[in-house]
């Protein structure tokens, strides 16, 4: 589904060039639940931004479902992301002046979908995430876990094939975090490819593969380790 080849990202500050991603070679298959880990400043969020197509200042090759992202212009990338990718944030990023239902509707409002269809999709999603009773509440009236549930519902409403979650439980208590991770597992079982960034070993266990980044390099990839292990065993 995703293939990164020699992908690099750096920031320039004056004459200094700071590298945040170095020669990333990574393949993520459809249906995987990948966890990206690493210390602060390792390049986890930068990698997520590249995958989310929010960042277009990288070099290298990025293939998404066979399409070469590096050849696309900004608008085409945004369009591809709009259709295929959903994002969940550590700070939920719900809009305060919108109700739960309106927040969930937000991604659809930027697509050419009729109002009745949107309403039906929102109703389905509220039902699916079991938050129908909260639909008219504002974010400030919800607990952190509930807010993140709404964040996930918003990310999933247009049924993306790739769900990116950047520290989705970073602001939550362990009980709420567990609930959210169960939700991710369920979505993965339903077919969504998930890439999450986390510091939590417990959360990483919900995934099928762990990638560790250090100073912008891929330091470890459990999939390759498995492959090496298999090779060794064979």
């Amino acid at each position, binding site marked *: 589904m995703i293939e990164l080849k020699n992908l690099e990202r750096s920031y320039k500050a004056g004459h200094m060039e700071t590298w945040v991603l170095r020669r990333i070679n990574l393949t993520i298959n459809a249906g995987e639940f990948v966890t990206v880990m690493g210390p602060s400043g390792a390049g986890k969020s930068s990698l997520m931004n590249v995958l989310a197509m929010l960042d277009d200042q990288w070099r290298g090759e990025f293939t998404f479902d066979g399409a070469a992202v590096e050849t696309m212009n900004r608008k085409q990338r945004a369009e591809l992301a709009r259709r295929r990718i959903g994002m969940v944030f550590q700070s939920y990023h719900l809009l*305060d002046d919108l109700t739960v239902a309106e927040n969930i509707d937000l991604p659809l409002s930027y697509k050419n979908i009729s109002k009745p269809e949107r309403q039906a999709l929102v109703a389905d999603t509220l039902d699916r995430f079991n938050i129908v009773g909260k639909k008219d509440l504002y974010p400030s009236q919800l607990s952190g876990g509930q807010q993140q549930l709404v964040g996930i519902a918003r990310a999933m409403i247009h049924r993306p094939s790739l769900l990116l979650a950047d520290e989705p439980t970073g602001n939550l208590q362990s009980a709420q975090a567990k609930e959210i991770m169960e939700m991710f597992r369920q979505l993965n079982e339903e077919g969504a490819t998930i890439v999450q960034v986390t510091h939590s070993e417990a959360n990483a266990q919900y995934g099928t593969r762990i990638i560790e980044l250090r100073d912008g390099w891929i330091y470890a990839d459990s999939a390759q380790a498995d492959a090496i292990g298999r090779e060794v065993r064979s």
Partner: protein
Amino acid sequence: MVSSIVQDLRYALRQLRRSPGFALTAVLTLALGIGATTAMYRVVQGVLLAPLPYPAQDRLVGVAFTFPQEKPNDEQAGTSASFLKEHSRSFTSVGISEDGIAGVNLSMGGGHSFQIGSIKVGRSYFPTLGLQPMLGRNFTAEEGLPNGPKAVLLSYGLWKRQFNGDVGVVNRVVRINEEPYTVVGVMPPSLADTGQSAPGVAATVGVWQPLQLDAKDPGYGGDNYKMVARLREGVSVAQAQQELSSLNKPFYQEFPNYLKWTGRGKALHEFRTWPLQQVVVSDVRTSLLTMLAAVLAVLLVACLNLAVLMTARTWRRAREMAVRSALGASRANLLRLMLCESLVLALAGGGLGLLLSRLAVPLLLSTAPIAIPPMPENEWLPAVFALLMACVTTLIFGLLPGWGVLRRNTGPMLQGGGQAGVTAHQAKMGDRLMVLQVAVAVVLLSAASLLLGSFLKLRSVASGVQANRLAIAQVTLKGDAYAGTLHTNQFIEKVMENLNRSPGVARVAAVNGLPLDRGLNMGGGPVHSEQPQGAVEIRAITPGYFRTLGISILSGRYLTADDNAGTVPVAFVSETAAQHWWPGRSAIGEEVWAGEKVPRRVIGVVADTHSRSLAQAPRATIYEPFAQISDSLMKTINGWFPTTFAIRLSGDMDMAAVVQRAVSNADPEIPVAKLTTMQSVIDRSVAAPRFFSYLAGGFAAFALLLTMIGLFGLMSYQVTQRTREIGVRLAVGADRRQILLLILRRGLLLTTLGVALGSLASLAVPRLVGSVLADVVFTGGGGIERHLSSSVAALAWAAIGMLVAAVLAGYLPARRAASVEPTQALRTE
């Protein structure tokens, strides 16, 4: 404590230096708002509130014989003034003067003369005001008699200018209108030497001449005089009014002729009295108060603008305040910090505003076509006013919005929070202020476009004269030399002959009472008519007058040199007069009364011209040849009005020397009092509406600019506040065009709300403007209600202007929002 304040002030200065855009906008907004308000305050305080420069001025009153609904005035007919002088008991003394300044020709050592303003006053006029000449003496009783010694009192200004302040000027003989007069004194500078030569036209008095009320005087029966009086000790204005009211009945019993002087609803003139201070400022009071109201509206816009900017700034500094609070700063400490910044802004804005007002007042006084009385200079009062205003506005409009920050829970702000976007409270505060600002600006804009529309409509009214290449030269033919027709005619003919010989002159004619200037107005009308005679405009003309001015002859023949003193008295009537007096039939051959004992035969009907102003409908006018005017009427019109030479030129040329030579050749002692063009005469007649429409336009443009600045500030602030929200929106699929529209739409929504609110308020504008600026709003004869339809157009223009301003002001912040990088925006977590 002091060192803390100094530290806060230093920090405030550093903060402002770091935000030069905000600091400059806030200071300029304050400076312009306060500058305009202080300038108007200076004028209002100096004119409307300052006491008159006379001893015990609160005992002075103006006494009028006027319609009940009239504003404070002191107009009197000679008859009523004499009656009051004889019968009223409320006053210790009564002073009577002519009602306007007239031009006279002054020559000091014989030979060259020049025109100055003169006003005739009764002997008790100056003692009533409590004034004595600073040099010499007041008029004697003898000098006031019709054939008494000729004496003048000089104004301080004339004495200084023309006599170099010579103390030996008393008893010196000068020539006025070719006759010798003895200078009997010089009046002190405290006596106002300005007045009006015509309604709304300011003029300066050079000399005062003695006035004797005489029933034989042709102006005696008309309201050509003014009366001031000093209240008797213990008598109030109300008591004096009570006594005057009791004199109405006896007056009408003695002079039943005045029962014909009826106004609206058959109202009769009454004796009225007001404090003299009110009378002096009466003509300008409404205009000044209207201007003050307009300026206050502008100040309100400026204050709202400041509030919007300060709200934006304070919320932007919310995190800093939270940090300070977390580190131990009390609310009082934070408030002091914010006060220091407000104080710096107030002092800078107020100081600059004060400076601006000093520059604006002379500009206002010199450009205002209304005759603003001279005002005493008071320096500290406006300064206190400006600084007080600056502090109060900054405190209320600058600090209160920030109060919310101090009351807010600081915890979430320090943690960064999980929220994206502007909080409802923040948004509402800024939005409400913005809507209010737009609404006030719309009211100003619609008032301005109403006044501008009225002015343009007035400009489009045809004067009835072809003004192109028409030069106008005026001379004053007063005194015994020009008290008869023969000598006047000889002078006119000689000047015309001289002018006609000059190269570039195509045609010349003379008139007493040029269109849009002053002229004789008295009883007249058709001879064979059952209608009572009404007031008509009477104009003396020479042959060729209509052709020279481009006035069409609708029927009949031209005036010729053969229509002279020895032939049948003839007249032309204006179209309005012909239609009114002989509807449906020809006026030619009919007879009219025109201020003389013999009737005149109508030999032509001419197109209408506007005799006084373009705003007034053309009046019934009778034209008669100079050559056929009686000596007594000639003396009257020469005594009251200048004679005008209208010169049609064949090209553009400077006529000054030519005219001066032509007049000097005819009479070396007659100066050219005025040399101008007909276009200037027309322009001057619309100067007041033009001034008010331009002023309102200027205020409205300023309000529009401030609103744009406010919108820009608010939008910029909201974009900054909403950066994360915009990042989220981009992350969940919004494209940049949608973000651009999101921000623009918000600006447009606020503007639309403001426009709707302002439009509702603006519905009252035509009536309001009509009631307070009745003298300068031209309605085309249909009342101010007719402007209700044009006010819709005015509102539409205001709304369009506002919406365009909103798009312009919102575009840059919107573009900035659209270019937000989501990765940057979301990194703030």
